[in-house]
Each structure stands twice: as structure tokens, then as C-alpha cells.
């Protein structure tokens, strides 16, 4: 087959994914006068960023002037259990305030302080009120601002267009083959560089806050193109997802509920988080309800309530309460803000939570507590990138946002994702622009390569007999939910891996009926192989890390081990299949280590670090 019959579109840079990271990257490329295209699985403005609720973390210091980038950096490293890439956490903390101000310059309207500045709210793991927000719909504000800004730039947006495979020419990126959802036709993007911004792969689990799009496409495509994945064992279970009714199980309940005063209770009415304060955070966490209440009333000397411990800690605590028989009727715990704040405050600060519970669960959160439980929310791990340029080990291939790994280490703080998208979206655009300047000569997309990809995709439609793609997906979700869950054991991981291995056969034989035109069954079938790469990578990495750190908990290896800090786990595609290996970490630069391990007094006094 000759691809001259296939539609071809040429760009300098093709951005894959149109969430916060993708659009920000595209804006940067367009600013640098590159011919820029962006493809998205859904319509513009519908990507996952739109669902982010609580806020975007940046040390603007508008609410508490003691805040600065160093404390944000330190909080991020502590939250990530010091397994983060130091340089990424540094860039993020330093650049986040400028990215937020830039959004305002582009039309975003954040909630205001009394002095008319951008207001900031408290969140888990952040020492000070740090999250710029708009009620509980911050993500919508951000994606709409970026979307409205980008339509006035020279960026070609290709909506409902899904990437299948990256094409290389002598090891360098030269194209990407994709298909239009609307027609089912294929399109070849010839491009000098690709920026992946495809998000995570939460759809490998049954209970997740993620939508159908989150199938690890970027992870799968990058892996098959020879890029490395890193820190895949760290999957964040957000502590508070809805648990009832069954059809909405997993939908997110923002951490902002706790940031604004919400408390967690078990069936005995006990505020159980006081029993789960880790030693390392004991100094900074209130140990009585009285002190926690003073903090809520604004006493700057009081320590933070334990509900605002990091997500990994809260999620595990909820799981333990439920297992001990102290759960709520539908297998969660109670999240109560009704008894803590007046109804008007709740409707004002948490309007979409109010709306969501009222419409979907028939519960008025200004009157009754919510029932919540852990839900797979976010991938800390992802594609391994150069910390400054965001380039992978494949020349011309970049990654940013959730699909890139390294910034968040073993656990992400709430609010650090929206800022991550913008900081590293911009840096990836910058990195791609620099890379393109170094290129000489013509790049080609091989006919063979293109026809192989097309054949693999159309075989699914031509297969007479084969599994129902939805049911194969459900089988995969059930394996991950059971064997690679919030707490793990070596035995379960081994069993999970065996089951995944068997399921690969079903994935290879899946079939879809009817034509390729807007055919969700076929689209689902095509996503399965990326989900499988994602699921296998998480499981293998989880097997290899024999300790409990952040979001990765091994019942057979409780607690952090010193040697666990010495390596990151890197996943590669080899001739004999997927390999996982430990890659030794370098010592951090002294000035960053000093800040990371400094006391708060030193950081607030600004006596440490440059």
C-alpha cells in the first residue's frame, strides 16, 4: 500500500492531547513561529483538565505572605517522599507563579482576596494557602482560558482525532499515524517533533475518576517507539471519590471540601484521621480536635488538621477504617462539611460538589455528610524525560503533563497537577523548538510502517469472530482492581501479571462490527493495547519496588526502606518483551538538598538557598 492515498498533514510540531499541558505546549510552539498542530481524542475544551476542581498551586503568597517557592518545593518533595526529580520540582515551584499570572493576563478570572488579588486556598500537604481557584471549577476556568487564547493563535486544532503510532526515521521522530473518529479514516501527520500530552491511564481500573479517554495512549505509543517509562508503580488513589449510587462510583469529590474545613468520620462518628498521623508529619499536624478547629478559624499558630495529610495517607486510612468494619453503609466513610460551615458558604465555595451530590445522589451536602472512598485518580509515573527540555530518549519526542513522569515522585500533592501542566507544557514547547533548530535533512515516513499500522487497526473490523472490546476492557479493569490495587502484595502482583499475560491473547483477537465511522466499539478496541502496556508497566514496577513509599504500598514490605530512595524503576520495550530495571538516582545539587531538608523557620526566614 502506498500512503499517497492517505490524507497527509504537515507540521513542525504535532501536540498529541489538548488538555492544559497540550494547549500550553502548542501556544509556546506557535509563539516561536513553528507550524503547530494539536490533535485531541475529544472536542476542544473537554479534556480531563476541565474536571480539575480544587485549584492550581503556586506560591503567590497572596493569602499568607510567608509562602515562597522554596517552601512549595519542599512541600512537593516531602509529598513525593523525596523520589521526585529534584530539578523538575525546582522548575515547577519557581515557574508556577508566572504561569498563573499569565493565565490572568489571558483572561482567567480567579476568586479574589479582599485586596483584589488572586485568592488561594488550603490543600493537603501544602504548608500555606496556595491554590489559586475558582470555586470548585478551577480546571474549567483554565482550559477555557487556554482554549479561547489558542484559537487566536496560528495553531491547527484537529478535534476527535486519535493517535495510533509514532513513526521514526532512523530513530528520529518523523510522523504520527492517527484516525478521525468522525469518519474512521486514517491521517498521516508528517512532523519534525511530537509532544505527547495524553494524560494517564486510569481506565485500567474499575473505580476511577478518569473518563474513557484515559487509556494510556501516550504511554503505549512512546513505549513502542522506544521511549522509557518511569515511576509507574506510583498510581494515586484519591481518597475521596463518590461511592454511591453504583453508576457514579469513583467520580471525584474535590479535596477542596477538606481544604475548606470538611472532616472525615467513621460509622462510630469518630474523626479517625487523628489515629493515622505519620511520624514525619507529626510536628506539623494538629493532634486534637480543638487545635484543628483553631486552625480552621484562622489561628496561624495552630497546626493543620489531619484530614489535610497527603492523599496516599488519607486513602490508606479510609481503606483501613472500612476493613475494620467502621465504614459507611455503601463501603466508604463520611465526609462532613455540613456541620462545619454554613450552607451559603458551601454553595459558594463548592458549587459543583453541591450540584453533583444533589443531582446524582440526591444528597444535600449542606445538610448531610457525603459518603466517599478511594478512587484511581492520577499517574505520578509516566514517560521518562530530560528534566529541562522534556525530551525523551527518542530524538524529537517530548512529553509533558500527566503522561510524563518524575515531577511528583511517589505521591502528588493536590493542586500540583494544574501547575505541572502549564510549567512543563511551556518547557516542552520550548524544548521542541530548540530541537527543531538542530535538524538538518529530510525526514521520511516509511510506507511499510504506515501500512503495518493501518492493517493492525483495520484487522479488528475485518475479524469475523473475536471478543467484545467492552468486555475485554472490563476484564482488564477487574484484574487491576483486584490485584494491583491501593495496597499490594508480591503474590497478588504475580497473579495479576499472569492474568494480564493471558488477556493479551484476547486483546489481539478482539473484534468490532459495523463500519469505522464514529464507531466507539472499534475505538475502544484500538485503545486496549495502550491500556495493556500501561497495566503491565504498573504491575511490573510495583513488583520490583519492595518497600512502601507514597502511593505504592506493599503489605509484604511495610514502611520506607533507605535503599528505596536510591533508584527509580524504568520500563523499556525489549526484544524479549517488557523489562523493568532499577536506575540509580544522582545526588541532588547541594543547594536543593539544603532547601528540601530545611526547617520551616529557616525557609520562612529566607536564610537558606539562593
Amino acid at each position, binding site marked *: 500500500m502506498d500512503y499517497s492515498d492517505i490524507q497527509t498533514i504537515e507540521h513542525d510540531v504535532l501536540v498529541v492531547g489538548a488538555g492544559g499541558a497540550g494547549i500550553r505546549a502548542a501556544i509556546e510552539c506557535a509563539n516561536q513561529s513553528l507550524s503547530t498542530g494539536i490533535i485531541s481524542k475529544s472536542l476542544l475544551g473537554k479534556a480531563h483538565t476541565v474536571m480539575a476542581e480544587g485549584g492550581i498551586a503556586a506560591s503567590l503568597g497572596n493569602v499568607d505572605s510567608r509562602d515562597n517557592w522554596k517552601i512549595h518545593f519542599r512541600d512537593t518533595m516531602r509529598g513525593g517522599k523525596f523520589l521526585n526529580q529534584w530539578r523538575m520540582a525546582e522548575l515547577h515551584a519557581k515557574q508556577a507563579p508566572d504561569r498563573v499570572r499569565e493565565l490572568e*493576563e489571558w483572561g482567567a*478570572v480567579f476568586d479574589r482576596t479582599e485586596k483584589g488579588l488572586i485568592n488561594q486556598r488550603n490543600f493537603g500537604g501544602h504548608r500555606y494557602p496556595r491554590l489559586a481557584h475558582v470555586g470548585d471549577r478551577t480546571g474549567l476556568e483554565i482550559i477555557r482560558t487556554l482554549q*479561547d487564547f489558542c484559537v487566536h493563535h496560528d495553531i491547527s486544532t484537529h478535534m476527535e482525532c486519535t493517535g495510533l503510532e509514532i513513526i521514526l526515521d532512523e530513530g528520529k521522530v518523523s510522523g504520527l499515524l492517527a484516525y478521525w473518529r468522525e469518519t474512521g479514516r486514517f491521517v498521516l501527520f508528517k512532523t519534525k517533533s511530537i509532544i505527547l500530552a495524553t494524560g494517564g491511564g486510569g481506565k485500567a481500573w474499575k473505580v476511577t475518576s478518569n473518563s474513557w479517554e484515559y487509556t494510556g495512549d501516550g504511554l503505549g505509543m512512546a513505549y513502542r517507539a522506544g521511549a522509557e517509562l518511569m515511576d509507574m508503580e506510583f498510581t494515586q488513589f484519591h481518597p475521596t471519590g463518590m461511592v454511591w449510587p453504583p453508576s457514579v462510583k469513583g467520580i471525584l469529590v474535590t479535596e477542596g471540601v477538606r481544604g475548606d474545613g470538611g472532616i472525615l468520620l467513621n460509622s462510630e462518628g469518630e474523626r479517625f484521621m487523628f489515629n493515622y498521623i505519620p511520624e514525619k508529619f507529626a510536628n506539623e499536624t494538629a493532634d486534637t480536635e480543638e487545635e484543628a478547629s483553631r486552625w480552621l478559624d484562622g489561628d496561624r499558630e495552630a497546626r493543620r488538621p489531619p484530614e489535610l495529610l497527603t492523599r496516599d495517607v488519607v486513602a490508606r486510612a479510609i481503606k483501613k477504617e472500612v476493613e475494620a468494619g467502621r465504614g459507611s453503609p455503601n463501603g466508604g466513610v463520611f465526609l462532613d462539611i455540613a456541620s462545619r460551615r454554613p450552607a451559603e458558604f458551601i454553595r459558594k465555595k463548592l458549587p*459543583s460538589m453541591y450540584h453533583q451530590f444533589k443531582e446524582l445522589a440526591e444528597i444535600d451536602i449542606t445538610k448531610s455528610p457525603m459518603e466517599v472512598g478511594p478512587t484511581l485518580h492520577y499517574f505520578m509515573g509516566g514517560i521518562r524525560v530530560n528534566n529541562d527540555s522534556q525530551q525523551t530518549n527518542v530524538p524529537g519526542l517530548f512529553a509533558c503533563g500527566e503522561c510524563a513522569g518524575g515531577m511528583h515522585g511517589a505521591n502528588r500533592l493536590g493542586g500540583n497537577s494544574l501547575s505541572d501542566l502549564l510549567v512543563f507544557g511551556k518547557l516542552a514547547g520550548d524544548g521542541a523548538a530548540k530541537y527543531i533548530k538542530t535538524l538538518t535533512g529530510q525526514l521520511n515516513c516509511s510506507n511499510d510502517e504506515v501500512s503495518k499500522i493501518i492493517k493492525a487497526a483495520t484487522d479488528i473490523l475485518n475479524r469475523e469472530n473475536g471478543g467484545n472490546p467492552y468486555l475485554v476492557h472490563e476484564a482488564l479493569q477487574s484484574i487491576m482492581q483486584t490485584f494491583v490495587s491501593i495496597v499490594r502484595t508480591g503474590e497478588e502482583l504475580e497473579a495479576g501479571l499472569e492474568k494480564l499475560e493471558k488477556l493479551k491473547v484476547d486483546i489481539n483477537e478482539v473484534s468490532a462490527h459495523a463500519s469505522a465511522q464514529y464507531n466507539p466499539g472499534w475505538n475502544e478496541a484500538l485503545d486496549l493495547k495502550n491500556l495493556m502496556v500501561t497495566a503491565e508497566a504498573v504491575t511490573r514496577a510495583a513488583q520490583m519496588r519492595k518497600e512502601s513509599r507514597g502511593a505504592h504500598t506493599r503489605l509484604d514490605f511495610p514502611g520506607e526502606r533507605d535503599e528505596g530512595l536510591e533508584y527509580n524503576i524504568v520500563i523499556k520495550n525489549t526484544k524479549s518483551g517488557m523489562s523493568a530495571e532499577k536506575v540509580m538516582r544522582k545526588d541532588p545539587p547541594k543547594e536543593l538538598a539544603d532547601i528540601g531538608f530545611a526547617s520551616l523557620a529557616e525557609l520562612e526566614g529566607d536564610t537558606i538557598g539562593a
Partner: protein
Amino acid sequence: MEREFKIWRGDAEKGEFKTYSIKLEQGMVVLDAIHRIQVQHSNDLAVRWNCKAGKCGSCSVEINGRPKLSCMTRMNEFSENEVITIQPMKAFPIIKDLVTDVSWNYEQNKMIPPFKPGERKKGKDHVMYQQDVERIQEFRKCIECYLCQDVCHVLRDQDKKKNFVGPRFMLRLASLEMHPLDQDDRIPKIKNDFGSGMCNITRCCTDVCPEHIQITDNGIIPLKERVVDRFYDPVMWIYNKMFGNGGK
């Protein structure tokens, strides 16, 4: 309990309603039912959706004749024997089954002159007070589900898409015009290009808005008033005749 659904199946050329029956579970919304039909009866049933929590505005359809988000429509809203009829939004061309071509909306957005803030003082942040932004924060809650566009008589029944941008983009224009930092003047375009005069204030858009935005009263009417003040105020009219209207 088994329930019957009539779902429109087809493409731009032809189509028909097909009946499907599935078992319901507690707490289900219409989108859950569509998904179940996809899994059990018809893998290729086309539907748009994303967040499943009323935040992204992807799953707009017409349910028993009413434009709604299928993810926020609970099955217990209907009486027990009621057949549920689901069809695509009528105001837009059909692509397949429940999916319509909404690209026209994206084209309208492109025509709107972008946000144009005043200079920021060096090293200083912009200052805006909460009471001054609250009004546009209401408009910015819009999730672009286009249900208001679907129900608007001008777009739906009269098909005057060339003359009117529709409620969604009147709202976007209002959010720019009322932005405390914005320096641009879009009033002439609102009258001449975006068709503010076409809206005859039936408030159907407000009625279907899943975000409960007061589209007509808080968004469209104030814009209409600004247009009237500028172009039809007799004092201003005489003033403009005598001194010119600055090209507006």
C-alpha cells in the same frame, strides 16, 4: 427491572428509531443506560461523553424531546412505564446516531475579538475585587454543552446561523465586555455581526442550561441594552450626528 429505550440510529443521510431493552440498576442516569446498550446490544452506538459528572458538556442529547445532559438525567425522573426516547440535538447536522457536528460553534468562538487587558504596572498584580468579577464568573461557569444553542429558536427553527451567534456566544461576549480588565469595545460587532437583535427573549436557553446560568437576564439583555444605549438612544443619536460616532 427491564426498561425500553428508543434511540435514534443513523447518519446524515438516513436513520430511524430502534428499540432496546435493558435492566436498570439503582441510581442510573440515561448515559449509563446508553453505555449498557452499547455493551450488550450495539457496540458501535455512537455517543459523545467524557466526565460523567456534568462538568465537560459532551453528552448533550434530546431526551423525551428535551435538550439535556445524559449524564445528569437520572432514570428515576421518569415514570415507571415511560419509554425513554433519545435523539441527537436537532439544531446541528447529524454525524452518526447521537453525535452531531458542533463545529459551527467553534467557528463562532474564533470570530469573537479576544480578551484585551490593560497594561499591568511593572512588578504589580492586576487588582479586581470579588464583587466586580462575580457577574462574569457566572457566565464563565458555561461548560459549552450547546444545549442553549440547540433550543434557541433562531438557530433551531429558523436556522439563521449566519445572523446570530446564539446564547452561548452572547454569554461569552458578555463575559468579555463585563471583564473589569478588558479594554476592547465589541458593542458594534455585537449589533452588526453577532446579531444581538435576533434574540427575542423567550428564555428557552436559560431554561435548559445545566449550569443554571441566567443567560437571558444577566447575559443577553444587558448586552442588548448596551447596543440600544449606543445606537438608539435619541440623545446619543443627535450627539453622534453632530460630532460623529468615532467610526462606530
